[in-house]
């Protein structure tokens, strides 16, 4: 294979290329596409919810369908949209930021993506096969055990499969950062986005297995008549809540830490200043992650764990405010004294600060256990977590997409449309969720299919629905922007933003081997150092030589397909044992793929030095 293989090819070849790719940049495209698709799906579900709540006692959706809608909105947005979109950005950028040519396990990287995708598709198949899960994204037992039909079965299997994919992604990033940093790229010189990728991966690694276990118990209870949550046989439903939140709380940090990292990079780039208090930022990230494992029971203040447990978890939760506060002030200090450029990427970052501060503030308010007796499971909580997940994670994803779009796709997104989308989204977002704080305290619990007339909740809900539609408009503008950019967008130079980190030292989009010669890092913000103190470009750490590249493979796709089929088998073997054949066929396929993978030696191939020399600089 030669470098000149990037000519125009037919659609079949294009598709095959993406199905078999192990290149982290192409897998990033896949994640962004898959995550983006589910983001739109989750958004449409959100609009259905808001239409139902536009007026009191509305009958736009039936009660059962409404519960399916809220369950799928939450599950889709968290597992299938926000997380994969971040995994996409991490895949695209993190290896470039540490000067690596790929991730540690390219094959696993591809497998992780396909497992996520097939898991997501499996979950969404439920819409067409008798109804989606309807026990909430938290799927509390015993409601989830009693839920009729196969909805919750799709939930357990779909999340199990996509969760396995995410776990692989996490391990992959961890090893990549440990072993594949370029010469001179010490841990304390890594860009903040790489740091948060690392810490997020640790969270994924230690949080997801708890969900795995919870899902197994739920699956066994529903499909094989075990008694974990069956009170009559001594079961205990609170176990599910513990397992779910031992996973679930770190999960929210999985969703926010990458955003913290990329905002740090963006603030520093567009303020033309080094990140203020880099060391403090790194340790604050680690501390947040650590505390993130100590606070799960603050989701359970009303469960009846007793005043001792409630007090301990309340204080532990409040403590998280300290490292988070450090971060906010360090970002402000980074801008202070800088030379601030405001473009659409920076706008999302700037919009994040007040939005996330509000979300963090209500977070501390929720930590006060006795106050939480009032907030818990009301629209106050809905408002809170949308302020952090939309105001933090979604703003982060959108900032990241605008910031790295040139690097990932070689073109710059249209500024005018970018700014329009930002302002409309910001207004819509605040309109939707700010009022919900008050709705909650005025007596509106969350997950209410209808609210009654004459309870003082009408106006607030109407405003909220109007805001949701504004957010929808902003997303449509973003889509138009992406299409416009693909057709007529401005071609991006290697370093469009006067960047500071290694990804801006190579062409946009990067060649498939990333760095012709591994760069030598001389400090934090290596490219900036070379630009201001060196000769303007990176010094290579090695002479030009052959580059070793991994082989592409279709096995990850087939393996994931196998698990997908086995998932259907598990779900339907309850109705008819013939479906067990699908279980065996699916898992058998996956195992055979695994065996092929282990028995065959994969040595990869080499790009010859002569070919690299022929490439223009």
């Amino acid at each position, binding site marked *: 294979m030669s470098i000149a293989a990037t000519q125009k090819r037919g659609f079949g070849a294009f598709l095959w290329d993406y199905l078999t790719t192990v290149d982290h940049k192409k897998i990033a495209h896949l994640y962004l596409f898959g995550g983006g698709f589910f983001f739109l799906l989750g958004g449409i579900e959100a609009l259905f919810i808001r239409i139902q709540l536009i007026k009191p006692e509305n009958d736009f959706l039936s009660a059962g369908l409404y519960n399916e809608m809220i369950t799928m909105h939450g599950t889709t947005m968290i597992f299938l949209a926000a997380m994969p979109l971040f995994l996409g950005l991490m895949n695209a950028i993190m290896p470039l930021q540490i000067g690596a040519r790929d991730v540690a396990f390219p094959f696993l990287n591809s497998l992780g993506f396909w497992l996520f995708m097939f898991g997501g598709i499996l979950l969404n198949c439920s819409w067409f096969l008798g109804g989606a899960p309807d026990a909430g994204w938290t799927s509390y037992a015993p409601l989830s055990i009693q839920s009729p039909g196969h909805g919750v079965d799709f939930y357990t299997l779909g999340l199990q499969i996509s969760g396995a994919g995410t776990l692989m992604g996490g391990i992959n990033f961890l090893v990549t950062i440990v072993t594949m940093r370029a010469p001179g790229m010490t841990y304390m010189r890594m860009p903040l986005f790489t740091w948060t990728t690392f810490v997020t991966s640790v969270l994924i690694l*230690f949080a997801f297995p708890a969900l*795995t*276990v919870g899902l197994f118990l739920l699956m066994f*209870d529903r499909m094989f008549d075990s008694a*974990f949550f069956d009170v*009559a046989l*001594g079961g205990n439903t609170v176990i599910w809540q513990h397992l779910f939140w*031992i996973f679930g709380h770190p999960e929210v940090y999985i969703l926010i830490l990458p955003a913290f990292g990329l905002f740090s990079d963006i603030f520093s780039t567009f303020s033309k200043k080094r990140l203020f208090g880099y060391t403090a930022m790194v340790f604050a990230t680690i501390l947040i992650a650590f505390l993130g494992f100590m606070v799960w029971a603050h989701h359970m203040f009303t469960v009846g764990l007793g005043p001792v447990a409630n007090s301990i978890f309340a204080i532990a939760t409040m403590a998280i405010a300290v490292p988070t506060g450090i971060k906010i002030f360090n970002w402000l200090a980074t801008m202070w004294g800088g030379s601030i450029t405001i473009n659409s990427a920076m706008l999302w970052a700037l919009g994040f600060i007040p939005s996330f501060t509000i979300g963090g503030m209500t977070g501390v308010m929720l930590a006060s256990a006795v106050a939480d007796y009032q907030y818990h499971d009301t629209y106050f909580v809905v408002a809170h977590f949308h302020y952090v997940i939309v105001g933090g994670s979604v703003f982060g994803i959108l900032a990241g997409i605008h910031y790295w779009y040139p690097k990932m796709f070689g073109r710059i997104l249209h500024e005018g449309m970018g700014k329009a989308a930002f302002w409309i989204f910001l207004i819509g977002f605040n309109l939707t969720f700010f009022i919900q704080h008050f709705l909650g305290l005025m007596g509106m619990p969350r997950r209410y299919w209808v609210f009654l007339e004459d309870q003082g909740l009408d106006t607030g809900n109407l405003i909220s629905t109007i805001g949701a539609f504004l957010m929808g408009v902003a997303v449509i503008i973003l889509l138009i922007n992406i299409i416009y950019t693909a057709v007529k967008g401005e071609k991006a130079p290697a370093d469009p933003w006067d960047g500071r980190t290694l990804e801006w030292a190579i062409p946009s989009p990067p060649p498939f081997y990333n760095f012709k010669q591994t760069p030598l890092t001389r400090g934090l913000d290596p490219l900036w150092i070379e630009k201001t103190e060196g000769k303007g470009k990176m010094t290579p750490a090695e002479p030009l030589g052959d580059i070793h590249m991994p082989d592409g493979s279709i096995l990850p796709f087939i393996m994931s397909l196998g698990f997908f089929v086995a998932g259907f088998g598990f779900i339907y073997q309850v109705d008819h044992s013939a479906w067990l054949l699908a279980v065996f066929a699916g898992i058998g396929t996956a195992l055979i793929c695994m065996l092929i993978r282990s028995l065959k030696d994969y*040595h990869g191939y*080499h790009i010859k030095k002569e070919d690299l020399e022929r490439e223009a600089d």
Partner: protein
Amino acid sequence: MSHDHSLSPEVMPQEPEKATLEGKNKFFGLWFFLGGETVLFASFFGTYLALRNSTAGGPTSTDLFGLELVFIMTMLLLTSSLTSVYAMYHMKNNDFKKMQLWLAITAFLGMGFLGCEIYEFAHYIHEFGFTFRSSAFGSAFYTLVGFHGGHVVFGLSWLIALMVRNAKRGLNLYNAPKYYTFSLYWHFIDVVWVFIFTVVYLMGKVG
């Protein structure tokens, strides 16, 4: 361009499992994976501890467990961990034949353990009518111990695939990390069993 990583004793590095970048990646990757596995088993242990007295009128742990069999199983698995250490010792000395021999003994002991476990489960089901569906305790017991058993099965398959695949080609820098990561995994299974022995069987029999 194909790489022949075959080794002669003279060029054998000190730590063949970490001599290449791929090997190093596998080494760290497996350690991280075991970190995740620890949480997985911790969750199963937590569930078991919460439900171990929820027998719903069915057999209790004191009725069921016999420490003799469990002691034999423990010895089998602990010894197999030791034999895998010998195998790794021979790997570092580049003595492929001895490594394969010790690994074969490891596999043999692992299968012995598995046989005992199957016998144990069958015994509970036939003698006591104690199943996965009897009570919350039953579900928790079979799930925890069964997941461990599943890990043993997977480990054995992994080991046998490795030994068969490499029987004729000897040790090299490409497969040394594979052997080494297997041995790490096998130790982990052993450690989990020590906890099961203590938490499930000893605490179940004594108090």
